[in-house]
């Protein structure tokens, strides 16, 4: 296996408290050296002057749509998009068709990922059979074959007793349950945030209480029965509950997504279906509360909730349009430009949110550049400024509300297991 030498990059690794210019040597898929001057004449050498080297970004909330909805995305196209976005590992949600609620599906995803994956593809198994919220799945078997977490994402587990059983059961395997917090009775067929704007547009609204009531329920259940990671948090009320619960030691963690940090319900504009999400985009007070929660540690992770859809899924009446945004290729530059460059959070904090914490919470052997660790790295070019162009996405999902935004801090290079999978100059490199 080839040896790689990355010279003169600014290494930012919060797991080791590092932020300095260092050389980095990679051999046999692992990091073998990290110090000020490394000499390795036989190594393939890259000068990373003016660039930032971080532990590979990990996205724990991605929809790859395979099997069943390959017109929207495949493991191949989704993992290419991940590499182009600077992600070295992505966890794919179980709401495929059929759902990944059985060992055979987990094995299938692993096999396709082994053949066509560009980055590490980590399957998430369903909590309940058919995502119906009734009967728990073979969690132990699925974990044995590689499921890294369990979730019925897209569907809340409405029955608290079922959630209790799922938690007790996953606890035996020290695995994490990712909860989609939504009270469907309160959502009641709504298609955007419930507010004066939904009333103005004549669209059925989703109150923020739809999320917060389930967050409150999940906190109580977690306190009693096991660890829960709360997915895509979007409201101030949810954050207040989470902050308080964390102070009291509740075993919960949470994530939000870039679109909740950057957009509000106003993005719906005149029925713009690219701004239709689940949960919906909220109001400015919620957005500001999310930014504050990034700073004070209430939010543990930023995940993209990458939800690719076809043009046809979005070019319909707003109420009928699919929910979600194609997020893998824009997350890093969006967050770098709007939060790191503006000084709202440090680069270290961003890397914690996108690499260190996902690795810690989901017990992945990643999220650091310590010698001996897997050589998963993201190289960021803070000087590279360009516009988002959805037509150039590797993802099949061109559904983005960020098209045309001018951003900096794009991924310059993505290295997975010691192999360069993407460079800004050459694009995604297919497996040999």
């Amino acid at each position, binding site marked *: 296996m080839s040896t790689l030498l990355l010279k003169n990059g600014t290494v930012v690794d919060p797991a080791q408290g590092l932020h300095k210019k260092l050389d980095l040597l990679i051999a046999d898929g692992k990091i073998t050296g990290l110090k000020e001057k490394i000499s390795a004449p036989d190594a393939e050498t890259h000068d990373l002057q003016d660039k930032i080297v971080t532990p590979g970004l990990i996205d724990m909330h991605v929809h790859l749509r395979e099997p069943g909805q390959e017109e929207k995305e495949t493991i191949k196209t989704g993992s290419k998009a991940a590499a182009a976005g600077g992600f070295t590992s992505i966890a794919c949600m179980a709401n495929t068709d059929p759902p990944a609620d059985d060992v055979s599906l987990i094995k299938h995803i692993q096999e396709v990922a082994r053949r066509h994956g560009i980055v590490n593809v980590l399957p998430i198994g369903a909590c309940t059979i058919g995502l119906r919220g009734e009967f728990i799945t073979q969690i132990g078997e699925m974990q044995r074959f590689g499921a890294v977490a369990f979730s019925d994402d897209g569907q809340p587990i409405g029955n608290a007793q079922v959630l209790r059983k799922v938690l007790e059961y996953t606890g035996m395997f020290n695995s994490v349950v990712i909860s989609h917090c939504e009270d469907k009775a309160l959502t009641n067929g709504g298609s955007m945030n*419930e*507010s*004066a*704007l*939904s*009333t*103005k*547009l*004549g*669209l*059925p*609204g989703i*109150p923020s209480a739809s999320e917060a009531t389930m967050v409150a329920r999940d906190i109580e259940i977690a306190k009693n029965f096991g660890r829960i990671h709360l997915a895509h948090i979007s409201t101030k009320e949810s954050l207040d509950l989470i902050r308080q619960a964390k102070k009291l030691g509740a075993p919960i963690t949470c994530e939000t997504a870039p679109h909740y940090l950057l957009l509000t319900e106003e993005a719906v504009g*005149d*029925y713009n279906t690219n701004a239709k999400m689940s949960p919906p985009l909220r109001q400015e007070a919620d957005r500001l509360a999310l930014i504050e929660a990034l700073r004070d540690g209430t939010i543990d992770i930023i995940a993209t909730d990458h939800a690719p859809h076809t043009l*046809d899924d979005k*070019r*319909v*009446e*707003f*109420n*009928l349009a699919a929910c979600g945004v194609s997020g893998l290729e824009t997350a890093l530059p969006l967050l770098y430009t709007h939060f790191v460059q503006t000084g709202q959070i440090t680069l270290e904090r961003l890397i914690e949110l996108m690499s260190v914490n996902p690795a810690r919470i989901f017990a992945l052997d990643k999220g650091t550049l310590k010698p001996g660790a897997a050589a998963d790295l993201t190289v960021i070019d803070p000087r590279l400024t360009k516009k988002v162009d959805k037509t150039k996405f590797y993802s099949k999902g061109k559904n983005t509300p960020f098209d045309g935004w001018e951003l900096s801090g794009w991924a310059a290079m993505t290295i997975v297991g010691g192999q360069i999978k993407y460079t800004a100059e050459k694009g995604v490199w297919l497996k040999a």
Partner: protein
Amino acid sequence: MNPLGIKDLLGLKNLSAKQINLIIQEAFAYKNQFSAPARIKKSLLDKTLLTLFYEPSTRTMTSFNVAAGRLGGRAHNVSVSASSVQKGETLIDTVRNLEVMGFSAVVIRHSHGGAPQLAAENTTLPVINAGDGFNEHPTQALLDIMTMQQFKGDLKNKKIVIVGDIAHSRVARSNIWGLNTLGAQVTVCGPATLIPRGIEDFGVMVEHDLGRALADADFVNVLRMQHERQADKNFIPSKREYHRLFGINEKRLAKAKPGLLILHPGPINRSVEISTPVADGKQNVILEQVINGIAVRMAILNLLIGEKP
């Protein structure tokens, strides 16, 4: 561009007072000619209007048909069941097909808010919104405004109460936009379960006590209670209680300002939102609304697609 300066009539949200007044003046002019139909200029000769209704409706469709006919045009009616949208052809494909069939304009009713806008963005045909979800029903609001003006002139500072299911009413929303633009003062009244979030932001008063709301009102626009919607969604406990709290009856009228006029978009649920003596009484202008509806729709068709002199 036509005298209104717009390709489509999607709602009153974005219409100016000037545009609203232009439509209503034209409608009054047509109404004055109703007694001598031969005098009405046939500005829609060779024009065919398509009514594309994804929801059942008798009176709005008929009103558009009559309006087109009185202007010498023809109308072709298509009713589509809402489920067929999801089964097959998209709305965009439907309107594109209709465009090449040579229609002059399309009138759309749809169960989802924003659907006429989506159609309008994807066709060169003028699109007229005949009610979308609970977003807007502009022609109904224009005929309501015309009726109010007919009886009490300028609506500036006039007090109008809209009572009933505000949350699910496109009529209420279009009325609010139009009446606000013309300087009227609007109060919405209904059970808390049927008042939508943030409606105060539109500059309307919210009142749950009908007696108080009617105290100094010049008009009350009574919305139809949609039983099919109420029955399974638990918005009101019973029709009886609704009538007691929000129904218009003689007792309430006796306490209201003399000369209070009652509007209703129809069809009426007698003894629910309105008592029979009131429905048949002198203070309601419901049939006048129906007549004005034809005049308003003639005005809109003529302004949007009529042959200009």
